[in-house]
């Protein structure tokens, strides 16, 4: 797999424009990162929609309050996830003392378990679940047509001709789009994987 550095210049530019109150920059942030951030949080909150919405909202309020501290040394999405993780941990700490149903199932493990049991040894199901989360979040971070094209091809098994028809493009243009989509997907997948790696390192320290 060809390695390409994450697009930090684009992230720094986005933050600069957000600080300049550029509405287009906000719209770009929302379209690019909101779904991935939501999915990141939802998995750690057992998919509770109300709680997830609250945590994501709090995360974004905090992010905007300290936007000027983003240095652009790592991907912006990773920075968002780090803030979100803090909000989740604060939430569970406030709940400490109340019974929490800690479970291990196909959806994954709650944040309390990660914090309380740093020596927890993941098994195959958890690894598969984590991989699925990375893939799904990475797809959320892609432009819509890239994500859909990849899913049509590799999840639904459609041919390039069929995808071209859905996208209303020629077949060559569709091939070209798929090539760009794969490259972008690899970048985003690495970003998400690195974010989770940092998470695990913090939990074990």
């Amino acid at each position, binding site marked *: 797999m060809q390695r390409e550095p994450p697009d930090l210049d684009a992230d720094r530019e986005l933050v600069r424009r957000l600080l300049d109150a550029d509405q287009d920059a906000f719209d770009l942030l929302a379209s690019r990162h909101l779904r991935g951030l939501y999915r990141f949080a939802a998995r750690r909150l057992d998919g509770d929609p109300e709680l997830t919405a609250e945590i994501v*909202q709090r995360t974004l*309020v905090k992010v*905007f309050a300290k936007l000027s501290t983003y240095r652009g040394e790592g991907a912006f999405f990773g920075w968002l996830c780090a803030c979100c993780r803090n909000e989740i941990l604060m939430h569970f700490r406030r709940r400490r003392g109340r019974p929490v149903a800690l479970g291990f199932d196909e959806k994954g493990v709650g944040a309390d378990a990660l914090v309380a049991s740093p020596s927890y040894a993941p098994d195959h199901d958890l690894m598969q679940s984590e*991989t699925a989360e990375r893939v799904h979040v990475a797809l959320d971070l892609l432009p819509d047509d890239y994500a859909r094209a*990849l899913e049509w091809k590799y999840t639904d098994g459609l041919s*390039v001709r069929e995808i071209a028809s859905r996208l209303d493009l020629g077949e060559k243009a569709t091939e070209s789009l798929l090539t760009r989509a794969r490259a972008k997907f690899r970048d985003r997948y690495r970003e998400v994987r690195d974010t989770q790696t940092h998470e695990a390192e913090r939990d074990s320290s």
Partner: protein
Amino acid sequence: MTDRHDTPDPDQDDVRRLLELAGPRPPLPEDDLETIRREAMAAWRSETAGASRATRANRRIGLVGLAAALLIALGLAWWLRGDIRPSPAPGDVALVEVAKGIVTASVPREPSPQLTAGTRLAHGTSLETGDESGTPSGLALRLGGRVSLRLATATHVTLRSDSVVELHRGAVYVDTGSGRSNHESIEIRTTLGTATDLGTRFLVDLDPRGEELVVGVREGEVRVRHDAREAVAMAGSRLVVDRTGVVRRGPLSPSDDLWRWAVDVAPPFPGGTVAELLSWTRRETGWEIRYATAETEAVAARTTIHGSVAALPPDEAPFAILPGAGLEATLEEDVLVVAPARDSN
């Protein structure tokens, strides 16, 4: 489903394996995402406005002398034309516009004023609506000559200034006027948090036991502070804060029944064209106004209403008034459709 484009390609294998392993993405709740997006935008605007507001404030200080002279001159001109709403006198913070049912006022070390339309209220005035009899009651005030503040029944507030109101129990509705302006923000203070407007129409409801605070936003944005934390609620949403500071959010339609009591104490339509009446109806009811044709909209804009419509509430006025202008109104869900009257076609 394969074709000549799908020959094995090592460059695709990594992506193929990952997506096959992961399977389809679970769908996300689009309504929640939209609410989060809107509220995040409010928070972002609030943060980025702070940096530029400091610059504008410095410029304003230099111009305040000139601006004050102009405002006084304009105010006098408007008053003579009869277009401006009367403002409280210096020392007063509010003017009563509507008083219904059981409404009482008290001022420390002063005789209690009678509350009727036109009564002026000083800072420190305590207001209560309703009593044990359960008589439906309400008050509509004009704070500082600009902001509409309405009190629901069973409500107790203290007017600290023309921009700070303490809500002890019950519910208040605030309308700071359409669009953003440079007015000083209105603060509604409660034991569970302080709601500050960012150019808006909103209500604040503190339950009698002080267990829960509800802030509903009809237009604009409201910032709610509880201890050191704050949340911003945008139009079309409600925010609920409990004693422990836990915040819950949910959607709130501009025409939800929660706004009903505020319509009941709405100040009467001050007069104008049919279009202005419909605009007033929209603000008060939360209905969307839709004109069937451009000509219909033009007729509404150029037709002036003669005579008083003060007795008509906002959700009845269009149905009573429009036929006189050759128009008719039909309510479809929360949309008021205005069209030529059928017998005029």
